[in-house]
């Protein structure tokens, strides 16, 4: 058996380059657009560093100062038992804000999720309007909502709860409507075929499919809200963020590191519990 090369006909063929131009084209012209995009990206990246005012001196002195601060942070120390209790109270505020905010946002967003789902309400103008409405709410950060709610109900964790409710309302509305749109239509047809009303189709056809998805999303948001509720106090809306900002502003670095560790432990704990619960829910759905 003679050896068979991939381009056996090409051996000694003077027109080989013309037959397979793709192998002889210049590397640069082959990847013109990708390379242009890449170099534009690199130029923008360098310009970005330049425009944020980076300089060798600033980085060196900044890193030095940061190292010095980290040194001051050790060992973490709340200062006194009283302060430790105050920080713990802040942590409880944070957790309450995250829990209540997520729950109420989910309850309020559910009807809007139904309205925004194409397979429930099939009016495209209405669909577009409600989707943009939810997008607009989502486009405003939780911290900004917190500032607005502080103007309504005053400083404190209640404003934080309302901020989380408002910000999550937009995200939940979108996620819920997507979950509902992804639901299988056969159970709905089955309910309708056996004489069920539209409400029956919703209750027995769609809800059993979407409830596990929604529950898992709500748990996931509870996790992420625990993180955002720790910083919402920075603008005065309650929780441990208030103490975090205060200790940084007053340069009480040992208290700062104590609070950070408190937050880290709590967030990891919440993540762990919520991951367990989500596994249970998804497991039930699979069975």
């Amino acid at each position, binding site marked *: 058996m003679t050896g068979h090369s991939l381009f056996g006909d090409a051996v000694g063929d003077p027109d080989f380059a013309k037959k397979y131009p793709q192998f002889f084209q210049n590397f640069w012209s082959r990847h013109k657009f990708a390379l242009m995009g890449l170099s534009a990206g690199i130029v923008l990246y360098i310009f970005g*560093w330049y425009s944020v005012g980076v300089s060798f001196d600033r980085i060196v002195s900044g890193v030095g100062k940061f190292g010095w601060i980290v040194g001051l942070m050790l060992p973490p120390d709340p200062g006194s038992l009283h302060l430790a209790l105050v920080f713990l109270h802040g942590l409880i505020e944070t957790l309450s804000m995250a829990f209540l905010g997520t729950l109420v946002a989910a309850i309020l967003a559910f009807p809007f999720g139904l309205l925004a789902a194409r397979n429930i309400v099939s009016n495209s103008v209405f669909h577009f309007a409600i989707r943009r409405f939810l997008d607009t709410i989502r486009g405003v950060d939780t911290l900004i909502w917190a500032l607005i709610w502080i103007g309504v109900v005053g400083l404190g964790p209640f404003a934080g709860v309302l901020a989380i409710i408002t910000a999550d309302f937009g995200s939940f509305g979108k996620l819920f409507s997507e979950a509902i749109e992804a639901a299988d239509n056969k159970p709905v047809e089955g309910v309708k075929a056996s004489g069920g009303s539209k409400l029956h189709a919703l209750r027995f056809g769609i809800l059993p499919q979407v409830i596990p998805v929604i529950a898992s999303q709500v748990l996931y948001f509870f996790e992420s809200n625990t993180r955002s509720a720790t910083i919402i106090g920075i603008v005065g809306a309650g929780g441990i963020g208030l103490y975090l900002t205060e200790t*940084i502003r007053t340069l009480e670095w040992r208290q700062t590191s104590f609070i950070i560790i408190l937050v880290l432990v709590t967030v990891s704990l919440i993540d762990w519990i919520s991951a367990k619960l989500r596994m249970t829910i998804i497991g039930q759905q699979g069975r």
Partner: protein
Amino acid sequence: MSRAVHQITKEQFDHLNDGYNRALAQKNRMVFLGLVILMILIIASFYGSEVNAQKFIRNIWRFPTYFYEITPKLSFQNFFGDLAEWFWGLNKWLRQLGETLLIAYVGTITGALIAFCLGFLSSANMAVSQWSRLVSRRFLEFLRTVPEIVFALIFVVSFGLGPLPGVLALTLHTAGALGKLFSEIIENIDSKPVEGVRAAGGSWFHQVRFGAVPQVLSNFTSYTLLRFEVNVRGAAVMGFVGAGGIGQTLIEYIRKFYYSDVSAVLLLIIVTVMVIDSVTEKIRHSFIGKLER
């Protein structure tokens, strides 16, 4: 059909029925228990977050009023004049928006580069050693859990005010968030190309470069773009703690009750976020499309 039912004796039927009822009661008990725990948590968090229904009902009118106040007064006769007055600081705001986008961009890219290195170090299949894997995993977890604005607060003290602490804060948080995703992607790659490179005598670097990177690059890009969207939102509020971008202006306007300016800046932010979202979505889809071809 009916004969099969008749063949079950009364005792057998009762026994089965009992079992069914017991299983049902067990399930109901669990649901009831869950509801009780939920109720306790709700009541506890009502107290914990100082929910005050009276205050809420008394003051809720301020919420719609606020939106009424920040709505600019545009007249039909002098529409363009009013529009120009509403957006009086457009040049300044656009410059700050540009700075916000740059903070997000530089922070995302730098964070992604760090995540790229740490992702390989912390993955189960490509790690250099168990020890480095453990250390980089814990480090990524730490970066991920500390909110970016907390990093920003500390960096503002050590690097001074301005966009630089914002970039560094976003960089660290992005490295943590993407590092975990990257290492998960790396753990899901096909191991055959890597083994091929190893069998041909390639070093660890060669295995990563020619075995793993070609498989993961498109997913990495897609996640990085997704993170860029998130970081644009994050960079918009960095200014709240003095770390650059449009947030500084926004918080000043909100605190000083410059109503129409608040709406103008908010509108600019919302439009920018929407545009960025749709553009990155387009790019991500084109990447995924290329991958499948």
